């Protein structure tokens, strides 16, 4: 693997004394799409926010670890140096395309703003480039669309505009947090195909945050599964779906309706995720696990460093 664009090492995120994410490590190579998947509260979004240095500080802060972006530790950068990287070499897309755009500016102005700030383009040049970007993300008649306002666009079109803004400076890394969750399934398919094409064309590394295993299986190269603040399994996508090793991953794949005959009783995962602050010393999944062994309650299983790694004392056969 060539030198990673992003290498997160031992990242822990805390709110006060409560750890929200613990010891998170992963790396993404140029042109690679990495999925970070898990259920509500697993720490995936807070991890993405930390990578972009957008944590609501205080109270939430990086408690430990490094976030190496092309070798520079983002966790150690200050305001101005950080602003130069963010929006320029790191692009971001969020779930809610309605609220991430400013309602009182035209979409042309919002795309051009990135270019005037980071590329020092003049007004006319920025506008011309904005039209090219809209074209790139599949908004037809781009020149005429530049003067429209966000409320005049559909949800899918707004997300395309967000992608245009994120890609304006041809970033090395795209962080996409649930980019298609608010969209209908046919529009989701369009947007995922677009992101997939662009990262191949531009050689961008992508971090895709999602709760949807189907989305991961469709577009990601590698995947990290998070549970209760920790990465519990990490593998090439095909390996993870063919042979899930962590008991949580296995249970999650088994419980979805698509894995079961229609009408059959679903193998449900009993109980709920332990909230931050109520996590024990052993494995966080032990109380819901179908195959716990003695040490699961007392010893924290570690992820290790193999290609297909799972933090499980009794991995699925």
């Amino acid at each position: 693997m060539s030198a990673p664009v992003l290498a997160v090492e031992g990242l822990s995120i805390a709110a006060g004394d409560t750890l929200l994410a613990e010891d998170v490590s992963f790396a993404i190579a140029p042109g690679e799409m990495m999925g970070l998947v898990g259920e509500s509260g697993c720490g995936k979004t807070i991890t993405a926010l930390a990578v972009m240095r957008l944590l609501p500080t205080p109270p939430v802060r990086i408690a430990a670890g490094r976030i190496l972006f092309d070798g520079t530790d983002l966790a150690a950068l200050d305001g101005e140096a950080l602003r130069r990287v963010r929006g320029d070499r790191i692009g971001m897309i969020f779930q809610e395309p309605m609220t991430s755009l400013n309602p009182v500016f035209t979409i042309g102005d919002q795309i051009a703003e990135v270019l005037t700030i980071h590329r020092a383009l003049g007004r006319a040049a920025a506008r011309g480039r904005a039209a090219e970007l809209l074209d790139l993300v599949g908004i037809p008649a781009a020149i005429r669309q530049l003067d429209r306002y966000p409320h005049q666009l559909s949800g899918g079109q707004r997300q395309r505009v967000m992608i245009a803004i994120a890609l304006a400076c041809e970033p090395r890394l795209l962080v996409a947090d649930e980019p298609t969750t608010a969209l209908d399934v046919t529009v989701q398919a369009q947007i995922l195909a677009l992101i997939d094409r662009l990262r191949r064309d531009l050689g961008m590394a992508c971090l895709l945050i999602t709760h949807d295993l189907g989305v991961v299986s469709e577009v990601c190269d590698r995947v990290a599964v998070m549970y209760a603040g920790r990465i519990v399994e990490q593998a090439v996508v095909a390996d993870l779906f063919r042979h899930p090793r962590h008991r949580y991953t296995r249970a999650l794949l088994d419980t979805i309706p698509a894995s079961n005959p229609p009408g059959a009783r679903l193998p449900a995962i009993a109980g709920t995720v332990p909230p931050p602050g109520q996590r024990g010393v052993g494995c966080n999944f032990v109380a819901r696990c179908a195959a716990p062994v003695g040490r699961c309650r007392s010893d924290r299983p570690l992820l290790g460093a193999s290609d297909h790694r799972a933090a499980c004392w009794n991995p699925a056969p």
Partner: protein
Amino acid sequence: MTALLEVRDLAKHYAGKSGTTIRALDGVGFTLGRDEVLGVVGESGCGKSTLGRTLLRLVEPTQGSVLFEGEDITNLSRRDMNRRRRDMQIVFQDPFGSLNPRHKIGTIVGEPLVIHGEADVAARVAEMLDIVGLPPDAAGRFPHEFSGGQRQRIAIARALALRPKLLVADEPVSALDVSIQSQIINLIADLRRRFGLSMIFISHDLSVIRHVSDRIAVMYFGRIVEIGSAADIFDRPVHPYTRALLSAIPRPGLGPKPQRILLEGELPDPAHPPPGCAFQGRCRQAMARCATEAPGLQIRRAEGDLRDTACHLFEAA
């Protein structure tokens, strides 16, 4: 034996801006048998939630009729309708918004019993809580003390307290995490068997719909475009929209992926619906006739079979 529910040409129109008419529901008809689950699937704005609410007259239909056990309920007086409502209940998507935060669970679940003048309310509330898998002390607690999955159990207990014959479930698991979703799907399946419930199960999630439904209706732009057995709709879809919708589902796992049909464009503007078929602007197989004449939902010859669909590609049988 008569069907439990017979819906004829049901429509709900709203006044749009500057004199336009929004046809949220535009002439829908189907029957629901006893003990049957009809899945209603479609994307945002297709009219599926309006259908659920109009069936129960939570919104009044603009035209058409709903026959419940042979009785037309669309013209019932308020008093007679309220009496009928004990047989027809609904569960909503949002388990946070649908429970009054100031009422204890016992009051919430017992309210329909009190309204309909039933005896032994406390005992029956306790029984319902037990049936949906909540602890007995839940009756004395408030909604905020429960997780999303537990709240949905409370909403289900309330809906079933009067032992209705029909349950409309509007996206009942869509707000829940995967591992909680399967618990609630199992619960609904158990209750269906136990009480002999008939259900209208509304969801945008195709794999959930496939799992729970006997028959499926696919909606687009206020109309049913295809209806049939769950196996026919999923394994042998005929309407071009159904085919595109099914191909767009991201499927976890490694099985063969169907050729994806990427739809161009998005839904038409509801204030200015196109003449002819609402799907023609996105349909690859559209013909001249589709632009002028709206196809009716009827039995047609398709794929060597007789299928109930609204598409000019298939000749009426």
